[in-house]
């Protein structure tokens, strides 16, 4: 079956370069682990977009995580992906203006302090940081440690948001008073649109994230074909699925009739999982979010609704707000994440920035583009 798809891809390929972007960290890993890239026709370029929630967590959000982990009596619970992500730069009371010219208030920071840390480093210095598999595990830890405050670091996209919403609802239902959420949750379709408007990035088609789509369905991607006239194919994660997704995109390009298609029919229904969508709406409200490399994108952040404010770690612990980190200028993760440059274009790649000593999330995260390139290209 693989041979058949590859043959069809080759048949459709011509000299014209085609750039297809995938926006799911799990797709990046699947591509790398199966060695697909080497099998594709030469004109077909698969680029990795900002689909790794860890990679797009801003330095300021990470800084807030570190600040919280240093507080006495706090247990940080997190997905494993975040543990080694470094944040570096200058903590500054006067943040540089954000892309849209917004300025944000900063409380509690009086001077510039250089920071270079990670949750793993904080743990080595004595912070209680625990990896969990599910946000529900964080609730269990809160129940087992009534004298401590348990904070869950909410990173993820729409696949994970309902699970976190579920945990918050369960915390409310059982009357937990020592469980909190620090949300850095984001929604992906608006970011996909922002990318289509980036001058440096060329996207001829989108491989849409399979499991995000299990939750949100296919409707949210309609703007890609209707307003931007590019193909969008919701794709699964086996290499066979990815190849089929690419083929469907090429076929659409050839036919000149772009649309939103579901390759991952086994798990994705056009309406998505409505129970999960309702849970997101019940617990969260949309607000602006700061995406590393993309800047602030309105309406892509998920924050707790007023009804659930008592679970908000930001408020409870009076963490400094806003964009308070001037990122390390040497780190070009932002440009890698948006596909504007390849890892090889970055001067730090393989030199000052390696998997053992990463400067940014693209290198430390398993699905980070730089980490994948480092391992894949000898």
């Amino acid at each position, binding site marked *: 079956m693989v041979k058949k798809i590859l043959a069809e891809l080759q048949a459709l390929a011509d000299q014209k370069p085609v750039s297809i972007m995938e926006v*799911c*960290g*799990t*797709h990046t890993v699947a591509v790398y682990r199966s060695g697909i890239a080497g099998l594709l026709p030469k004109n077909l370029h698969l680029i990795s977009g900002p*689909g*790794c*929630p860890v990679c797009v967590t801003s330095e300021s959000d990470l800084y807030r995580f570190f600040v919280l982990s240093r507080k006495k009596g706090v247990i940080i619970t997190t*997905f494993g992906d975040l543990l080694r992500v470094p944040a570096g730069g200058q903590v500054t009371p006067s943040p540089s203006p954000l892309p849209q010219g917004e300025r944000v208030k900063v409380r509690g920071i009086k001077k510039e302090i250089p920071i270079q840390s990670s949750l793993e480093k904080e743990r080595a210095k004595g912070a209680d940081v625990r990896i969990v*598999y*599910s*946000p*529900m*595990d964080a609730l269990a830890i809160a129940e087992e440690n009534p004298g401590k405050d348990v904070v869950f670091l909410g990173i*993820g*996209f729409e*696949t*994970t948001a*309902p*699970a976190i919403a*579920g945990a918050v*609802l*369960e915390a409310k*239902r*059982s009357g937990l008073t020592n469980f909190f959420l620090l949300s850095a949750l984001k929604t*992906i379709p608006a970011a996909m649109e922002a990318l289509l408007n980036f001058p440096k990035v060329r996207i001829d088609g989108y491989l849409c*994230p*399979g*499991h*995000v789509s*299990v*939750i949100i369905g296919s409707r949210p991607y309609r703007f890609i074909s209707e307003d931007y006239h590019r193909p969008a194919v919701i794709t699964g*994660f*086996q290499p*066979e699925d990815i190849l089929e997704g690419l083929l469907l995109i090429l076929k659409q390009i050839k036919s000149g009739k772009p649309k939103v298609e579901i390759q991952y029919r*086994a*798990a994705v229904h056009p309406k998505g*999982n409505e*129970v*999960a969508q309702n*849970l997101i709406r019940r617990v969260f409200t949309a607000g602006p979010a700061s995406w590393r490399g993309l800047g602030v994108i309105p309406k892509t952040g998920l924050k707790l609704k007023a009804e659930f404010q008592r679970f908000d770690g930001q408020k409870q612990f009076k963490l400094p707000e806003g964009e308070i980190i001037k990122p390390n200028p040497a780190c070009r993760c932002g440009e890698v994440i948006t596909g504007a440059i390849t890892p090889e274009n970055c001067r730090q790649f393989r030199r000052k920035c390696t998997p053992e000593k990463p400067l940014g999330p693209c290198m430390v995260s398993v699905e980070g583009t730089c980490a994948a390139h480092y391992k894949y290209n000898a």
Partner: protein
Amino acid sequence: MCLAVIGRVIEIREPVGPDAFPQGLVDVLGIRRTISFGLLPSAIKGEYVLIHAGFAIQKLEPKDAKKTLKLLKMGLPRKLRSQ
């Protein structure tokens, strides 16, 4: 953002309270865990489901589930598979 696995529902327990989510046991290639069915309340015993972060998020047709599960198993002769 999207790591999810296919598992089979072994049992679903009664929710502990009026608004509580039902929880139950799933089996993923022989590994078992209790997960929440709050996002998939219609799941029943014996079904194949997609699991993410300790929650079932979607049902799968047996033929689709088995097809993917088959792709994952490698290299071991059948008689040793469930030792």
